[in-house]
């Protein structure tokens, strides 16, 4: 499998470490009323789609950037690769 790194171009998947669902970047607010329930959902519940899936890959044997890869779980077609940091930042995940 090849992952088209936004900065480095196509790289073999063996350079990467897989984490899972990109929803892991949506970490809940610890001060929310129902923080415990939100964190439980965040920590344990995942969608398992047959089709497009946004997922986190770490370029461990490369530039050590976390990527969000949109991969079709049926065909392995990769339609989009983004820098996770850019996505998280754009979503307003701030300090």
């Amino acid at each position: 499998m090849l992952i088209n790194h936004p900065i480095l171009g196509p790289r073999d998947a063996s350079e990467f470490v897989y984490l899972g669902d990109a929803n892991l970047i949506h970490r809940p607010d610890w001060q929310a009323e129902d923080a415990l329930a939100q964190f439980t959902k965040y920590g344990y519940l995942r969608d398992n789609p047959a089709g497009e899936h946004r997922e986190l890959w770490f370029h461990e044997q490369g530039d050590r950037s976390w990527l969000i890869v949109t991969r079709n779980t049926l065909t392995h077609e990769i339609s989009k690769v983004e820098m996770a940091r850019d996505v998280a930042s754009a979503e307003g995940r701030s300090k």
Partner: protein
Amino acid sequence: MTSPNRLNGGLIDRDQPLNFIFDGRQYSGFKGDTLASALLANNVRLMGRSFKYHRPRGPMTAGSEEPNALVELRTGARHEPNTRATTAELFEGLTAKSQNRWPSLKWDAMAINDRLSSFLTAGFYYKTFMWPTSFWEKVYEPIIRKAAGLGTLSHQPDPDNYDKGYLHCDVLIIGAGPAGLAAALTAGNSGASVILADEDYLLGGRLNSETHTIGDESGADWAAQTVAELQTMPNVRVMNRSTVIGSFDHGVYGVVERVSDHRPKPLTGKPRQILWRVYSKHAILSAGATERPIVFENNDRPGIMLASAMRSYANRWAVTPGKALAVFTNNDDGHKTAVDLTTLGVRVTVIDSRENAPSSGSYETIAGGRITNTAGRLGLTHVEVTTTSCTIRSLEVQGLGVSGGWNPNVQLTCHQRGRPQWDEALSAFVPGGVLPKGLVPAGAANGVFSTQWALRSGQQAATEVLGHLGKKSETIAFPEAEDAPAKIEPFWHVQGAKRAWVDQQNDVTAKDITLAHQENFVSVEHLKRYTTLGMATDQGKTSNIAGLAIMAEVSGKNIPEVGTTMFRPPYTPTAIGAFAGRSRDEHFRPVRKTPSHFWAEEQGAVFVEVGMWLRAQWFPRAGETHWRQSVDREVLQTRNSVGVCDVTTLGKIDVQGDDAAEFLNKVYCNGFAKLAVGKTRYGLMLREDGVAMDDGTAARLAEDHFVVTTTTANAIGVYRHMEFVRQCLFPDMNVQLISTTEAWAQYAVAGPNSRKLLQKIVDPEFPIDNEAFPFMACSEITVRGGLRARLFRISFSGELAYEIAVPTRYGDALMRCLMKEGEEFDVVPYGTEALGVMRIEKGHAAGNELNGTTTALNLGMGRMVSKKKDSIGSTLSEREGLNEDDALKLVGFKPVDLANPVPAGAHLMTKGSPVDAKHDQGYVTSACYSPNLGHHIGIGYLKSGDTRKGEIVRLVSPLTNVDHDVEVVSAHFIDPEGERLRA
């Protein structure tokens, strides 16, 4: 030596005779022969015994699809079982042995299975060996294992090397028959980078096995010239002996190049095989087609083979299985065999299942005939033909060619999502469904069977691919070539046949398939698993379609309704060594050595693997005969004076930036924002689910600069996690991370004399007395007159202790310097065992305690989890289940009878309670003999352990016969007030 079955002509080199040995007898063949063709030339048709019934078998094919002629090739460590005689190239001195027979190929004791065949049908094991249950493992399985299977292993390490390689190309062309060569020529002329790979050593595919001409020359000559032309193109890489074994995502293909299999052993410095990973933009599948047999009674005798194989043996290798032959066919292609062999002077009779079969003046054709039986115990002697008028004729023949039509080699199109589709006109599956992206099938692999159209199809495929690449292609005008239509009338099996083999490699008969259907295994996937049809190493290349056809017939469906099973990589059996490449033995994974490794080796250290690192475990001295003597000495000497331990392997992560402290507040459950510059703090890292992940220290070297340490085993995972937190959770923090594990060599200097020792090497402008450099201080310093270093006053041993780090290249020098300067204190190097003993004596947690199930509360650090801030794991660590009243707490254990050990892994029970999981009270995580206390000690988790000190509990380990009493004590066995480390 005479070769009775050798004909004239062929593509063998008669000037290069080669001697070889099969089953102890010497024979000779020629360069260009395979083992199978050379044996046939010597009138040896019997080459092996079948898998289940031990039936005598000979070659059925002349290629890699061979199910029967599997032999043990070579001797000694290079001995390789289950090698196909049909692809093994002959070399001088080749030694081969038949397999799956005892005592000899001609007299095989297990052939009794064939007589018992009515009991050994499909599902036999499942039905017969069901009772009694306990017999399966002890009685049945060993017997079955011994009886089944084919060749045996040498049980010696493989002496050869296997390499891995990486190639990139615009177009990978798989198969160098007419379609592949036409495609390669078209793509090569356009300037595209091309790889042409073929499993054969001679490129040309069927052109080398047929008498067809292309223009004025023979197909073989045209192929040779085309290959020569391609080899002059710098943008074309021609690879023979190279099998494309798999098609993977995004245009990646696996190719095994057999660099040395045609030699007695690899040339010096050469690997046996190379596994290439080919990154292609496009691929053209021109892998040709495989002929399939017709199923009839006793269709597996040596001498019965595919008609195309018979033709290959005659035209390419100049060999016939005998002087009188027959051909059984349902299509025009079978007649080609008759024509070619008749021309070579062999008598051939054709039995054509079609009543309107074409007739020829040069050989007899029995139109509408069927072969209803055969004879010959160790090799074919007669075939029984039933004619349309139901008369039975017996023909005396030594060979029978069978042609049931051709199957396009669609395997690689199925490795991802492709599902072949049925072509009614060809009576065959052709590539269908979703093909691998970028792959275009051509030629016979796409159901285009004539040479003329194969050439055009290859060219068309190349033109299509070049269009996608934006390259211009010129149309090559190929000369006229054979263009016979593929005329076929489906005929799969002779009705009423029982002992008729469908899958010859797994010994599956027509009767087995009918039986499976009767027993309601109606899905093709069930049929496959119940009968093992197509599950042998040939993946049913010659058997699947006949099996599906019989299944269709008994279930009243047609073949496409029955469906087909999936083909999976590898295309042909592949040596495990090729997948391993150089990653074997000590190279299985890299070994990491610390900068002072060679110094430790000089001291005679015993090493232990920790992650990939080699760490000194202890340093035996003269006279010490047991590791405990060395470890006890190292511990006592450190606690009494001073010891040095290499702790380079701990993970080190540099954290810099304005938000560095805030960032550490997120990754550690305890607070770091208020840590003063020049101070170090213990930090506990949680997973988001609240379970402890790792621990270490963070030293604040500047307002915006921390150095974090991790445990050796978790160094990589912690770094990955910290990058996740930084990039994905807090992307706007101004903080940067870099792993500096390899940049610094670090040593723990521990014991009451550690300060005195360090004062001898730390430059005087950096005072390290207790006032200037108190417990938990850290600083960037210099040693030995200006060498930059880092000093941390931290202690894992519980003694007055420091860790000193220098740039990696000075690690060895620093270690030698510490030893020399420490002579006056009798300094001792200590290994990981002594390190472990001292940390257990001190009650410090390590990997055994942070075992992936324990929380800060369990570790006795519950109050460290700050409620005032957000950190990873802080919210979920408040879950009810992790905070029960009787939660496990880390405590120490001391045996009541001091002679007893406290083995780690043993469980704790309340006195008088039953010993079962329900009453479990906890377990011991780490244990050792404490030379300071003079008895064994342990630390571990006990329910409400913090309130049970002084209680006597029962320590049990039924597996190791441990059952004795221990006292619950504080985990801090040594210096519980911590006076020593603050001294």
